[in-house]
């Protein structure tokens, strides 16, 4: 077990290292993205440009620059943005994290509840009108572009119906949970729903398939022959087994979302989370921030992968020995 954990840890480190090198190469080895002139300012003369290049270490060989950047990011923890000079990367990420967590946790609660309810209901109501109807909702959820939905929601709540139905909807933006929990929830409500719709669709469709398969399994027949109630059979046996792949998928999705995959929702709703931080940094080619956020994102994805492995073993005893 220890060896396994160590191996896993080593491979995670390797992946993160590879990602950092990749990002560094992508953004530094390509022409046209030299940050020196942008840092120096408009119409800086060549001498100033050279000074800036030197003071930021941009005139040093590539591997040294990489090592310097990683040292500032990981060891000194004082890596600074190229665009907002003096603004440190790590505090920026730390500040953006609660926003993303607020969005993702809230949305996850909604989509898991809705997804499980929809998927289970559709599976048990198979052969009746409700099943295709529920699944249609699922397909629509999966097929709507999240950013577009967000814009349409904004249009409806901020303009078209703002004076009537949605007068209670605050303008897009973020209010901290600690600042005002009521406003926090109100500000997050539509972002939650928008993000959750997509995932609720995915999970409902997936779960329906799993439950349908499970209900045809021998063990369900055994359970029924034992004289258990249908409800118990569904919840304790079929659903319990169906949730295994769902939970592991959830882990991966959750990790990716916390890592910044909720970018589109954050951009559309003006939420200053990790996704938006990354996107803004990408727009400005603010390499230190990009490096920080991408490593942060990769960390969460890798972490989620590891957690899913562990969780999988907890959920499915068969996996413990494999």
């Amino acid at each position, binding site marked *: 077990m220890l060896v396994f954990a160590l191996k896993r840890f080593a*491979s995670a480190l390797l*992946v*993160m290292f*590879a*990602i950092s090198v*990749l*990002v560094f190469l*992508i*953004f530094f080895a*390509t*022409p*046209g*993205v030299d940050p020196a002139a942008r840092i120096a300012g408009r119409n800086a003369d060549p001498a100033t440009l050279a000074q800036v290049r030197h003071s930021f270490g941009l005139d040093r060989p590539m591997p040294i620059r990489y090592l310097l950047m990683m040292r500032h990011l990981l060891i000194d923890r004082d890596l600074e943005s190229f665009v907002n000079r003096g603004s440190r990367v790590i505090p920026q990420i730390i500040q953006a994290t609660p926003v993303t967590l607020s969005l993702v946790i809230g949305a996850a609660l909604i989509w898991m509840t809705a997804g499980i309810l929809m998927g289970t209901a559709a599976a048990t109501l198979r052969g009746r009108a409700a099943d*295709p109807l529920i699944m249609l909702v699922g*397909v*629509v959820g*999966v*097929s*709507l*572009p*999240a*950013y*577009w*939905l967000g*814009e*349409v929601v904004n*249009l409806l709540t901020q*303009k*078209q119906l703002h004076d009537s139905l949605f007068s209670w909807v605050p303008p897009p933006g973020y209010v901290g949970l600690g600042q005002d929990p009521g406003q926090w929830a109100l500000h997050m409500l539509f972002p939650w729903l928008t993000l959750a719709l*997509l*995932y609720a669709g*995915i999970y409902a*469709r*997936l779960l329906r*398939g799993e439950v349908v398969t499970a209900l045809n399994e021998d063990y369900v027949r055994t359970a029924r022959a034992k004289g258990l109630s249908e409800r118990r059979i569904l919840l304790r046996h079929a659903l319990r087994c169906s949730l295994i*792949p769902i939970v*592991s*998928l959830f882990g*991966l*999705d959750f990790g*990716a*979302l916390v*890592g*910044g*995959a909720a*970018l*589109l929702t954050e*951009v559309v709703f003006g939420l200053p989370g990790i996704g938006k931080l*990354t*996107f803004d940094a*990408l*727009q400005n*080619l603010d390499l230190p921030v*990009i490096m920080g956020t*991408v490593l942060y*994102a*990769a960390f969460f*994805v*890798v972490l989620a*992968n590891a957690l899913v492995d562990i969780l999988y073993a907890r959920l499915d005893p068969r996996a413990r020995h494999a």
Partner: protein
Amino acid sequence: MTLSPSPGARRSPGPWRTAAGDLLRNRTALAAAAVLLLVVLASLCAPLYADHIAHTDPFQSHVSGTTVVDGKTVPVLTPSSTGLGLGVTPIGPTWDPAHYFLGADNQGRDVLARLLYGGRTSLFIGFTAALLTCVVGTLVGVVAGYAGGVVDAVISRVLDVVWAFPVYLLAICLSVVLLTNGLKLGPVTVDAGSLWLPVTIIAAIYVPYIARPLRGQVLVLRNKEYIQAAVGSGAPTPRILRREVLPNVVPTAIVFVPLMTALAMLTESALSFLSVGVQPPDASWGTIIEDGLGLLYTRPAVTIAPGLLIALTTAALNVLGDGVRDALDPSARLRGGV
């Protein structure tokens, strides 16, 4: 997420015919296919509409142009004439197929004509990216799973690295850089403005989604008796791959194609929305949405129409994909979600 390899991996003769039969009997899937066909046909007919009905060039700016509404000549872009006279508003939907049926965008171009042309781009990118992903993903998965050892270790690590990027982040990273410089990979050169750039990027980021499950499937196959037997009898590897492995793996890969196409189209539109996807003058549904955002409060149709088309097409693809999966390989599962 993962693909659990089907236990009865070896098929009785004529699985394709059985699958086709199953698919043809699946009325929902057929309806989805019909919708899809309709969208494809409409997109193919884009020039017909633009040239012969609307008489407009959807790639030509008509900033100072005029059109006819109810027999009166009006400007396509109307500067505000009230109050301080700020802003310019394009013509809204006229519901007249010959003159700006769905109105104009901020360049004074016919939105409907652009939607039809945009459909070509979106569908092209969706289909080609999905095909490319499935082909490359299958190859990578089969090679990794079959070769094992160092090859597998290296490929798996590379896949891990790609996997550890949230897909959109990776796509945006690549797009931002490649849009500035274009892509030069050995003999392959893709211009920054070319449609092949988003195709390549989207195909690349989703490869692990195909390669990983297929690798798992091949690993299981590799340990099956009949393949062990074939290996033991000294059959050449290419023949084993062709005769024994691929026939088992290809149906799974095919199951992924429609679902992947839907995913690729959504990704394309998202990238275009963030203006790192399809570049003007090419139009895709995503870029039309992005163009329309500047007009959201005055001309919401420009944004809403392409969004609905994306939703319709991806929904049809998803339903069709479910049908294909049920017919070919019920155990195949694509990790959705973006």
